[in-house]
């Protein structure tokens, strides 16, 4: 460190040196960094095992310097269940997109939550299939244009965008559910706090923790990163509000 300088920011040592393959402005990079900062701050690198999905974050293990398993599309919750059950003292998370968690893997997701599997879901909801080039997701908004809904999502035939955080919060054995975003510095700080809280609840053995990220996809939304943040404010948050949907500790206090 140069004399007279103060270190105010650094990349966590728990991220590898590999450059992210994510598009500019995408929240994947931000969430990856938060998760690995938390792993470093909590000193749990040797205890953390992650599961990556099929989707843009299929390569997450290139960047996160922790043990990881690559799951089949939609099966991350089942894979994480298998890991956590045989290694109950480890911190296990699944990192999944909306197609993975809320379409092809809905059964695995719901049943893991219903059993209260003691791991953390990091659910990146960007309303679109990113990796395959911008097709309609179960979370695509009413009227939103994608490559498979070129005239806008028709909710009469495709159904309404699915609200996973709301659904997950109805399960008795789920400990914590929050929807977060990273569109402003304030929200980004809240997002990191939420992820840390989920890991802490997991360490206490409280049950399933579920963090939904109201995320963006500038490339497939055909917007600049800045415009994508405005889209989040104008279109996404009114339908997908940012808030805590369940906190088992607060519920216990209220009782």
């Amino acid at each position, binding site marked *: 460190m140069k004399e007279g300088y103060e270190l105010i920011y650094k990349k966590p040592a728990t991220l590898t040196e590999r450059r992210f393959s994510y598009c500019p402005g995408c929240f994947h990079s931000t969430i990856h960094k938060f998760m690995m900062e938390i792993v470093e701050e909590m000193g749990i*690198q*040797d*205890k*953390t*095992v992650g*599961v990556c999905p099929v989707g843009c974050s*299929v*390569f997450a*293990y290139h960047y996160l*310097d*922790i*043990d*990881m*398993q*690559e*799951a*089949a599309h939609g*099966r991350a919750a*089942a*894979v*994480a*269940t*298998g*890991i*956590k*059950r*045989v*290694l109950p003292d*480890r911190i296990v998370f699944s990192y999944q997109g909306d197609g993975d968690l809320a379409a092809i893997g809905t*059964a*695995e997701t719901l*049943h893991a939550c219903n*059993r209260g599997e003691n791991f953390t879901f990091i659910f990146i909801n960007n309303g679109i299939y990113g990796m395959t080039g911008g097709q309609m997701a179960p979370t695509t908004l009413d009227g939103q244009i994608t490559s498979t809904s070129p005239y806008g999502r028709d909710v009469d035939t495709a159904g309404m965008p699915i609200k996973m955080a709301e659904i997950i919060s109805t399960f008795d054995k789920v400990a914590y559910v929050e929807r977060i975003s990273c569109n402003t510095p304030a929200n980004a700080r809240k997002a990191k706090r939420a992820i840390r809280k989920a890991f802490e609840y997991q360490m206490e053995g409280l049950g399933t923790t579920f963090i939904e990220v109201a995320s963006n996809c500038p490339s497939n939304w055909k917007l600049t990163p800045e415009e994508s943040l405005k889209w989040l404010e104008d279109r996404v948050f009114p339908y997908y509000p940012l808030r805590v949907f369940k906190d088992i500790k607060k519920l216990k206090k209220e009782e």
Partner: protein
Amino acid sequence: MAEVKLMKGNEALAEAAIRAGMQAYFGYPITPQSEVIEYLAAQEPKHNYVLIQAESELAAVNMLYGSGGAGARVMTTTSSPGFTLMQEGVSYMACAEIPCVLVNVVRGGPGLGTIQPSQGDYFQAVKGGGHGDYHVIVLGPNSVQEMVDHIFLAFELADKYLTPVMLLADGATGQMMEKVMMPQPIEYKPDKPWATTGKTKDRERNILTSLYIQPEDMEQRNLKLQAKYKEILANEIRYEEYMTEDAEYIIVAFGLSSRIVKNVVLQGRKDGLKLGLFRPITLWPYPWDKIGAIASEERVKFFMSVEMNAGQMVEDVRLAVCGKKPVHFFGRMGGIVPTPEETYAAIKEKIG
């Protein structure tokens, strides 16, 4: 010391898995093998294994992936339609090199089929079933005793070669009761430095994946798998011969149908017909070379494959015989077990 017990095949294999050091079981009920999960559920309080009745076979096989990848000795059991659902996980585990034991207690198909015994899943078991170039080691037990012995063997082979290993049983072997010598429990100490147990300072991170996006890397992965399969082919072929030494007619059968053929061979011998049974025990790797060598013997007049399907293993017999002798087939389908009488009649018809 081994214990002598009278047990149902499904329960015996469950008990064998416990004694072989199984640390986690994931399954979904399906006839005719639900006794396995029922037995394991009843025994669970006395042991230290993880047991989950999953929401589907798809979930079960992916739980197997996760826990096998985390270093545990793991097993699932199912029957035909369930095994079809599991093919996704089998392909992924074969590529990611995750050891596990799979049991398919086969019932009649296709589709929902019947709940009666069948060998209709032979192709699916030995030729792949899932996508991509892979094999799993396939064992074909023909008795309750072998349900037990093959479970021990399957766990050992899975760990040795880092691969899924399966038992291709059938509804009858799962349901029937026989005398069985149950081995003493072993103390299983996993030695799996590749498992995802948490990256410690002294090692690089462990990644279990079947994704190699660059074709050059994917080809390298395939070459590694193929080298392993070659090693398995060289070392692990198992078979049983019964009265083949002077046999003129070689009847090839595996699993339950081999028990029927054994009776037929005895009957034939009484009648002065030189029948012999060749029973592949490993269905992959298949004893092609051994059958090929027998086909070269001058005394041998023909081969006949007897199966509980429309003729699946017969293709491997033909490959092995390679045109040196005629290869015939006799089988029943859809959950029908051929009788010794009709099997014998089919053989005699070909003898002429």
